[in-house]
């Protein structure tokens, strides 16, 4: 304990607040040297502020750990390269990359602007690529590395008003599975966390919006504020630390849901039910067999209301 990551050199993006801050401090507590990256933006990505990163570095140093700030945005290839370079220049090598940085720009799909789409895809997806690519080059050369990416139940199960975020966060899961296969043979592991926690980011979903979603019968992913179980940002860090240790050398390409004291391995996206025939299906055959053999135990997550005229839906018998 307290030296599980002694001598390891880590980058944590978006480490100035929330989950990222918790991870940076936890890695440092276990002996790692940490680059605390954060440009100090608002939850929607605007602004710039060095103090979140600086405060975390100060907190780490005050407990006897080693850390340095970096304020680059992950959104560009130059930014990503510079973040990784900061680790190599300061500490001599990079062992661990935690891609935690992210923003939100919620909007229903029919109202979502190009800018809202682009900004979220850029920070989450381009951000993961921009940091991971230069780290991958080094980790492959040294035949050692740990990459921990951040996904979300928003994309893995689905949530309303987050087409950009859901696409990006499901995209991170796919990125994780591929990078795990690109690098595994070089002694590198790449896994992802889908966290549930009460942070600045989840606090931006207004209570009113959540209530509207619930009222209209739209299925909800488990909300961070739900129930008596405490889900602080700090609860996410232990699993990240574990994945970075030598003990986790053979865990690769996996997605973990983490919230409070609950850690779950995500199911692989494998067949649940299947139908097979020789040759090509006709639409008439599918119309007959799909309802009874393929989709009989799944629910529409956003069913149309009873008063909507729907071609194909059986008419309700008159009272």
């Amino acid at each position, binding site marked *: *304990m307290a030296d599980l990551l002694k001598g390891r050199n880590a980058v944590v993006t978006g480490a100035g607040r929330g989950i990222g801050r918790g991870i940076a401090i936890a890695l440092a507590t276990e002996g790692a040297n940490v680059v605390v990256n954060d440009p100090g933006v608002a939850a929607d990505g605007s602004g710039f502020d060095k103090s979140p990163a600086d405060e975390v570095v100060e907190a780490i140093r005050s407990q006897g750990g080693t850390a340095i700030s970096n304020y680059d945005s992950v959104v560009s290839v130059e930014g990503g390269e510079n973040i990784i370079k900061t680790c190599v220049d300061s500490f001599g090598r990079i062992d661990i990359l935690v891609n935690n940085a992210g923003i939100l720009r919620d909007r229903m799909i029919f109202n979502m602007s*190009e800018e809202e*789409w682009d900004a979220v*895809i850029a920070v989450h997806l381009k951000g993961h690529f921009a940091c991971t*690519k230069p780290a991958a080059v080094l980790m492959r050369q040294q*035949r050692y590395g740990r990459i921990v990416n951040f996904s979300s139940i928003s994309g*893995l199960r*689905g949530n*309303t008003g987050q*087409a950009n975020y859901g*696409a990006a966060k*499901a*995209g*991170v899961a*796919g*990125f994780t*599975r*591929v990078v*795990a*296969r*690109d*690098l*595994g*043979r070089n002694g590198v*592991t790449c896994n992802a966390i889908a966290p549930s926690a009460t942070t600045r980011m989840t606090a931006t979903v207004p209570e009113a919006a959540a209530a509207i979603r619930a009222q209209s*019968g739209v299925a909800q992913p488990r909300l961070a504020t739900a129930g008596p179980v405490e889900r602080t940002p*700090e609860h996410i860090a*232990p699993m990240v630390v574990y994945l970075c*240790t030598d003990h986790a050398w*053979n*865990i690769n*390409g*996996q997605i973990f849901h983490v919230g409070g*004291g*609950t*850690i*779950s*391995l995500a*199911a*692989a*996206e494998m067949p*649940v039910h*299947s*139908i*097979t025939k020789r040759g090509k299906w006709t*639409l*008439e055959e599918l*119309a007959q067999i799909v*309802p009874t053999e*393929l*989709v009989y135990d*799944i629910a*529409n*997550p*956003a*069913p*149309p209301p009873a008063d*909507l005229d729907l*071609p*194909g839906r059986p008419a309700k018998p008159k009272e």
Partner: protein
Amino acid sequence: MGMLEGKVIVVTGSGRGIGRGVAELAAEEGAKVVVNDAGVAVDGSGSDRAPADEVVEAIRSRGGTAVANCDSVASMAGGESIIQTALDSFGRLDCLINVAGILRDRMIFNMTEQEWDDVIAVHLKGHFACTKAAAVVMRQQRYGRIINFSSISGLWGNAGQANYGTAKSGTAGFTRVVARDLGRYGVTCNCIVPRALTRMTSDLPKGPSQERVVGRGIEAWPPDHVAPMTCYLATDQAWNINGQVFLVYGGTVALLAHPLPQRTIFKQGMWTADELIEMVPPMMEGIANPAPPPEDIDVPGRPKS
């Protein structure tokens, strides 16, 4: 027959391969089809009106109704133009099928920014650009069908495709959210995960590589076999199937699981790393490393044989 009679359907990337099969079957079933294709190479380069025009000609020669559109999906203007073509030609839009896609394969440590950006643009921006425009129309008319395209490259993982796997896992996530944004308006949004021998898959290694499994067996699955389930989801009968992901190849259609919690460890309060060292391995029982490090490299933590 006639299960899509009168439906107005846009199929992006329908000049060849899977998209062509979808457009042709939809037309056969009575739909009026916008055949969109920018006529690019698999890597996205070039442009050519001929693929889209040929498919329109083929549909018309069989008595069907179709028009060509050659816009790229990768911009908001392109997506809007594609949807507008349906409205201008046929007066409404019932179904959008987002097939268009390109490949720029490279291992992550060699992947260029351009290779990343181009693939994300066509698949993800492309899905958004067309779907956003279609969603406005479908919500107003309180009816619609959106069918997106994913890939096992992203859902299961395939080496050398960090860009494509990301984009394609992204379209599955996009599907799940759009289904929830639009379901209450009589719109469904689902996703197809196809496996077929096409221009895009014909180069895949078919040997015993553990990490590149996508090509295995692919010669047996013709592209037009992806069309039936795709078109079924567009019918009125499929009104209550929403937010789902289907694997389709040859004569097989499978409902895929969403990546939700499957095995769980729990404690009251905060885990310590020492507790996880003890509790995670049993949770991972039977789960293999898809790319295990070979014996001859030094792996800290691996027991010596």
